[in-house]
């Protein structure tokens, strides 16, 4: 009985995860090594990868800073009041419930060129939608809960005894945060950051809607994969997808590592 | 007829030798306490009897039939777990009925039996509660009722009172004893609390480092401990390195390296006039006095040895620093070869002083 279950488990993994991965690798190298290199060294491919990198960088930094602060305020911020905190706490999860396409649509509806805000920004020469800022905002929206939800349980678990002890020893807010709070939450932050990187690298729906998917301008790696498939250029799509998958594999290892470090405390 | 027979039981957990060649018999209807320090192998023995753990070597027989290969489902046992292991998602009624339901007992019969047990364990009115709505003592009762419901032949209890407040524990102990007597079921329980074992069990097995040190009635074990471990584990005692130096034990402890364990109740202290046989006493000085509610705990220095004893509140009070007479009635002596109980020779034979 035990054997049967283990074999079945292996089978599910093989069919659902491993076989597709192998198949994709195969097709990326269908035209040999040169075909793979060619597909990823196209100018639009290089530009798309760069855009993805930039989005990931901006989103991870912004989401890290604001995620940590939001988590701190939600757990410790007595000035917010119980009710408001509980309402905000529920709102944090909303992006989980929103389809990425809808997330993108929201940004377009709010700051698109047809709206008052959009028109204002256009006047002062800043494009949001169909440009880099919009892509970052859309991705920020989608990834917002990841960081907050990783840190909040850690903060709740360690309690505020240590922080109060630090305060009685004469340390002010920033010192207490850096010396007492940060060491306990850093692996939670690291894990949240890895999740954010993975999600922002892979974000597709929201970015597709907001960016307009303009070649060599707002196209990211994932939207390029989509375009290649739509153009029946499957081999090229496979090349880019393989690069992304390789990054994902690296992130997966990082996830495991940070998860273990997190459990040490 | 022996209900339980165990022959040469052995169990390793990895490199840890938990149970070493353990053999014993248990008579039908007896209540046995497995007593010993934590990590001594008591629970492993109990779990092997239940079939939750399989022995590396040895035989377990119930009513003369080997049960080693039987799974726990078919051994006809009831098991009460240390933390009760009640099913959290079931009510008290459902918990107790579980064993009957899985045996496909007719509904009416299940109901009857459960209500009978609810009555017996004093849980009437709590049938529809969930375990988290009960107190520790009540959960304990549910655990008993659940284990008893399928009418097992043997009841196994793993530290049944460990998780209960000291106050209620006392009450539950006598309740359990009474209950088991009424049901008439052979029972084995594990405990590290000697008071509990002495109070509840018909017979105690003292277990240490995977071995049975002694098996006997609580009184036997208290009176005549078979090994130094039992002597030091049961009751309070003071260890004396050189038993020869004790007044009245010079001959008994002749063999070099003989040590003694002396219980407080073996020692008497007092003013010289309190002793009719002054020759059996020696001089000492009161070091400390502790008030213990119903009596004084007296620490007395005799030569280079400190002894502990109790003194009744009725007697004339002592002061720290008072010179007193000390009489050691009895001592548990042991050396590398053997161990035995010796009486103060001047007390037994006061005339020997004259010779």
């Amino acid at each position, binding site marked *: 009985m035990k054997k049967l279950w283990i074999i079945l488990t292996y089978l599910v*993994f093989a069919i659902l995860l491993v076989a597709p991965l192998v198949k*994709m690798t195969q097709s990326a190298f269908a035209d040999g090594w040169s075909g793979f290199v060619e597909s990823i060294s196209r100018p639009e491919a290089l530009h798309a990868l760069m855009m993805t990198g930039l989005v990931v960088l901006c989103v991870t930094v912004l989401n890290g800073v604001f995620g940590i602060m939001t988590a701190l305020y939600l757990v410790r911020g007595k000035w917010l009041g119980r009710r408001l905190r509980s309402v905000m706490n529920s709102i944090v999860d909303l992006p989980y419930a929103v389809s990425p396409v809808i997330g993108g649509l929201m940004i377009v*509806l709010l700051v698109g060129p047809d709206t008052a805000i959009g028109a204002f920004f256009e006047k002062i020469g800043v494009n949001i939608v169909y440009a880099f800022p919009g892509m970052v905002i859309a991705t920020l929206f989608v990834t917002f809960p990841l960081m907050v939800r990783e840190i909040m349980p850690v903060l709740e678990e360690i309690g505020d005894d240590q922080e109060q002890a630090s305060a009685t020893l004469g340390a*002010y807010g*920033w010192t207490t945060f850096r010396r007492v709070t940060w060491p306990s939450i850093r692996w939670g932050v690291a894990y949240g950051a890895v999740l954010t990187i993975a999600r922002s690298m892979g974000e*597709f729906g929201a970015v597709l809607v907001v960016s307009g998917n303009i070649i060599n301008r707002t196209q990211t790696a994932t939207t390029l994969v*989509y375009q290649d498939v739509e153009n029946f250029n499957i081999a090229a799509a496979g090349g880019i997808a393989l690069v992304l998958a390789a990054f994902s594999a690296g992130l997966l290892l990082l996830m495991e590592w940070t998860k273990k470090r997190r459990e040490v405390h | 007829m022996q209900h339980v027979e165990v022959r040469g039981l052995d169990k390793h957990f990895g490199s840890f030798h938990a149970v070493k060649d353990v053999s014993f018999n248990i008579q039908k209807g007896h209540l046995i306490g497995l007593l010993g320090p934590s990590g001594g192998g008591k629970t492993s023995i109990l779990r092997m009897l239940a079939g939750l753990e399989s022995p590396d070597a040895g035989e377990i027989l119930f009513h003369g039939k080997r049960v080693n290969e039987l799974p726990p489902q078919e051994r006809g046992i009831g098991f009460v777990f240390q933390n009760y292991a009640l099913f959290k998602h079931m009510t008290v009624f459902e918990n107790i009925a579980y064993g009957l339901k899985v045996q496909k007992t007719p509904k009416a019969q299940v109901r009857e039996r459960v209500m009978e047990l609810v009555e017996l364990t004093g849980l009437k009115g709590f049938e529809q509660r969930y375990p988290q709505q009960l107190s520790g003592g009540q959960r304990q009762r549910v655990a008993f009722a659940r284990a008893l419901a399928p009418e097992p032949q043997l009841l196994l209890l793993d530290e049944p009172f460990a998780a209960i407040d000291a106050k209620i524990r006392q009450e539950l102990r006598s309740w359990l004893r009474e209950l088991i007597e009424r049901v008439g079921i052979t029972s084995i329980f594990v405990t590290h609390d000697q008071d509990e074992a002495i109070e509840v069990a018909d017979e105690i097995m003292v277990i240490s480092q995977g071995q049975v040190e002694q098996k006997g009635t609580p009184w036997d074990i208290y009176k005549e401990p078979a090994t130094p471990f039992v002597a030091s584990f049961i009751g309070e005692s003071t260890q004396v390195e050189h038993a020869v130096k004790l007044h009245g034990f010079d001959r008994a402890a002749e063999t070099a390296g003989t040590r003694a364990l002396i219980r407080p109740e073996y020692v008497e202290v007092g003013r010289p006039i309190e002793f009719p046989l002054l020759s059996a006493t020696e001089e000492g000085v009161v070091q400390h006095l502790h008030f213990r509610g119903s009596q004084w705990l007296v620490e007395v220095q005799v030569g280079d040895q400190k002894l502990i004893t109790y003194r009744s509140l009725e007697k004339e009070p002592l002061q720290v620093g008072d010179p007193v007479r000390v009489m050691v009635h009895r001592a548990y002596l042991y050396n590398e070869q053997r161990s035995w109980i010796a009486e103060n020779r001047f007390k037994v034979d006061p005339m020997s002083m004259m010779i």
Partner: protein
Amino acid sequence: MRLPAKITQTLSFVQVSKLEEDPVQTSWLRHKGWTYGFRTTVLLYFVVLIVLPIAGVYVYAFTDGWAPFWESISDPIAWKAVLLTLKLALIATVINVLIGTMIAWVLVRYRFYGRTVLNSLVDLPFALPTAVGGLMILLLLGPNSWVGGIAEKLGFDIVFHQPAIVIAMVFVTFPFVIRAIQPLLEEMDASAEEASYTLGASRAATFFRVILPQIAPGIAGGAMLAFSRALAEFGAVVLVAGNIPAKTLTASVFIYGEVESDNNLGAAAVSVLLLTLSLLILWFINRVQRRGGRA
């Protein structure tokens, strides 16, 4: 907690000089304005990024009142897309509950070769871009592939038909149920199971009567997360579905199509429908979790 000023002063004289690297420069750091500045910034960020966009969609969908909204969602293509999404997401969730429960059980209870690797692999769909997931499924099951060829001969159509959408949804939501059950299985008191055995219950009876009820909250929570994620899935689905209206057009792909054809109102209307559904599920998960936490 505030200390009397005098104590704080004394303490800071003793301690802070050691803690702070540069006591002279940090005085401006302690200005009250910083605290208020941070608080305002974070609150503003929160409102602008999360609250405003969601409210915006609802407002936009109803700007011209009920009639246009109703018209948009009563378009057969629109409501059929929503219904199809619901149906397929439900199927994917059921599949995930079954294989997820099995895998969580195997990964927690059995020790076998490759267990840790499989355990790490569970998160792969989280780490992998969904578009890449979609492409992988397309390549594996597509008409030119080995599997697709066999299926076609047998008369099954996978890619560009509903089965492919279900597979894509199962792939993307694969970790949810497993990760929800695993901690419950790990923390489960082994003695409850043993108690069941000593009371005469077989392995199967013990699983269904004792173990399953204890992991049920995890299964339910994981299933609802998987369901709401499957409802929302776009990247993997759009690549494999073929997107034929009323047949393989899911709600999120429909919304994308409306945006592309500049029909923002239609997109917003269906979005409101889908959003409301997801929000209800989210609210329900929160309630279930809170109840589970209390028990």
